[in-house]
């Protein structure tokens, strides 16, 4: 008879990059059950937005997340523009999408490094985080910020692309392409990686549907959803890309899906830069938003990002509700962390790619 131990993981733990707390009940090396505690980075952003004007809220929204900051402000601006009935120039849509795709590459590479680190493959961690710098450099050249770009305003974008910048983007991403191929080959073939990730943290197609899981996790379980394709909107309706799916549903499948998505994002960026339409990048928006409510969805790196905004006709939003893709991923964890090996717990936790700052807001 082995004694049961309670193992705390978090709020501070080498495995976690953001504060969240798990308490695993362990017997020997087996995890019997787990409990979770959230809210360490709750900042009350939704409420704070309601006390500010629509224009001020853009900057606050951008600080929800440190990885996918741009897609947050894009979704918010798009929602407000819909309420205002603004016709945003096509060029602004393209520039927004360009940053969204750069952010996707950045987020996926970051995640890949974290997973590699958690299975003890520090070399790959160092490599992916080094390669991620290429994308961060592009972002810095483009907007001046590596993480927060402050490029979105209601009615368009603030920063325009010139030909020199376009060449830099294409050139730097060409550097990245062979490195992605190496990473893909490594995760497909390296035996110790497959030992640690295959058939770990399996989410079946039914479970994925039941938990409303979105993004790469859902796609790795065979659920074919992607807001970029499902809601045709400029510029994605004019671009050609594949929605990557896999059927295995384990951490390994999620890894492959994410690496292949990174390559698709690379293709998308090439198309965006070559097809960039000319014209204005911003139109003037009214301060006061007509009454009404709107729901807006965008594809963040981790999946569908959902914004609900209600306006009462003033210059301040009456209600903002944000649902981030991490929420359904969190809800799968109690099931995934039942009756598994303790050594697999880090793989499962990193496999769902939690963004705690997004989830807590």
């Amino acid at each position, binding site marked *: 008879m082995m004694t049961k*131990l309670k*193992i705390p993981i978090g709020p501070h733990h080498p495995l976690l990059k953001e504060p969240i707390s798990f308490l695993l009940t362990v017997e020997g090396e087996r995890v019997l059950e787990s409990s979770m505690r959230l809210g360490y980075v709750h900042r009350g952003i939704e409420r704070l937005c309601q006390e500010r004007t629509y224009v001020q809220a853009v900057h606050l929204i951008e600080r929800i997340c440190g990885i996918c900051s741009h897609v947050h402000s894009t979704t918010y601006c798009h929602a407000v523009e819909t309420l205002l009935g603004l016709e945003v120039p096509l060029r602004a849509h393209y520039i927004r999408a360009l940053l969204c795709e750069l952010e996707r590459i950045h987020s996926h590479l970051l995640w890949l490094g974290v997973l590699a680190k958690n*299975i003890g493959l520090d070399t790959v961690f160092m490599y992916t985080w080094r390669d991620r710098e290429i994308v961060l450099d592009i972002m810095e050249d483009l907007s001046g910020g590596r993480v927060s770009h402050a490029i979105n305003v209601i009615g368009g974008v603030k920063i325009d692309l010139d030909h020199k910048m376009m060449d830099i983007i294409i050139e730097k991403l060409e550097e990245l392409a062979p490195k992605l191929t190496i990473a893909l080959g490594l995760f497909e073939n390296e035996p*110790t990686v497959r030992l640690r990730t295959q058939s770990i943290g399996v989410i079946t197609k039914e479970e994925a549907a039941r938990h409303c899981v979105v993004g790469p996790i859902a796609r790795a379980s065979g659920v074919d959803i992607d807001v970029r394709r499902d809601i045709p909107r400029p510029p994605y309706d004019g671009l050609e890309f594949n929605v990557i799916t896999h059927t295995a549903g384990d951490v390994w499948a999620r890894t492959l899906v994410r690496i292949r998505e990174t390559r698709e994002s690379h293709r998308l960026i090439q198309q965006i830069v070559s097809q960039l339409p000319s014209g204005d990048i911003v139109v003037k928006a009214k301060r006061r938003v007509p009454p009404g409510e709107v729901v807006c969805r965008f594809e963040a790196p981790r999946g569908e990002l959902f914004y609900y905004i209600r306006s009462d006709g003033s210059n301040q939003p009456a209600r903002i509700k944000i649902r981030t893709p991490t929420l359904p991923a969190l809800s799968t964890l109690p099931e995934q962390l039942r009756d598994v090996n303790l050594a697999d717990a880090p793989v499962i936790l990193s496999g769902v790619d939690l963004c705690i700052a997004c989830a807590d807001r």
Partner: protein
Amino acid sequence: MDITPDVIKSLFNLLIFPGFTFLLFCSWVFDWLDRKIIARFQGRVGPPWYQPVADFIKLLGKEDVMPTGSQTFVALLLPVISLASVLTAGLYVPVAGYAALSFEGDFIVVLFLLGIPTLAYFLAGWVSVGVYSILGGNRSLLQYFSYEVPFLLALSGPAIMGGSWQIGRIVSVQNTSGWFLFFQPLGFVLALIGLIGKLKRDPLDIPKAKSEILAGPLTEFTGRKLALWHMTINMQTVVGIFLLVNLFLGNAQALHDIFGVLMFTVQVLIIVSLLSTASSLFARLRIDQLAEFGWKILVPLSLVQLAFIILMGV
């Protein structure tokens, strides 16, 4: 007691060469090399040469605390005992053909002494009450049972070929027959894997897997005790590498032969870089995967190697 040349020689052996000072120096050099090589593999610059010394001095100056309820005295005793056994083992392992002590059967004594730190490591987990420590201690014992058998089987290959349990004689046999590496390459690889398991290095750092159980049994250790542990493990690395070189790449040239010393240094450095390469190439195994790997693959392979040696004809 009179100070005779014998006493002076013994003291020199114990304290300077191949005893404490030499092993400590080697452990720092190997530690630095290891970190530097891994850093270069990972596209980093790596630490400056004095980093291991600086780390050691820094740890000595740190506060020494243990959690309430832990057995502080035992916790202090454990690294001291392991360090003593590693140092004793170091006296019997020839360095470039020079061993301080030697007798028929010293090989077995060295293997036994090198096993003590593992046991102490396990106990360190138990006396320091933390949950991560206890789990890490359990894992280190489980790991011991997985790698030790193939490790010992692989090491007994050279002993059988050399026809002796004395390391010095195994080395001198290779002077006439050639390196045992050529006769049992499989045994060498198995011994290397066993050494990685023994030293708990990547990718077999299961008892101290950072993303799972922090630092394993040493989680609660701080300050001087932790410094002692690091010193012990680094010296264990040195002695283990010397042992492997002697058994598989033995050359009995005496110390005064510059060529022999150079040869020994090169061989040792090659093994250090092999270990570093292994730690930067592979993902960490799970403890059940290691047990399976050990008993289903390593043990049969080492038996094949042994059968090959015996049948090839001694």
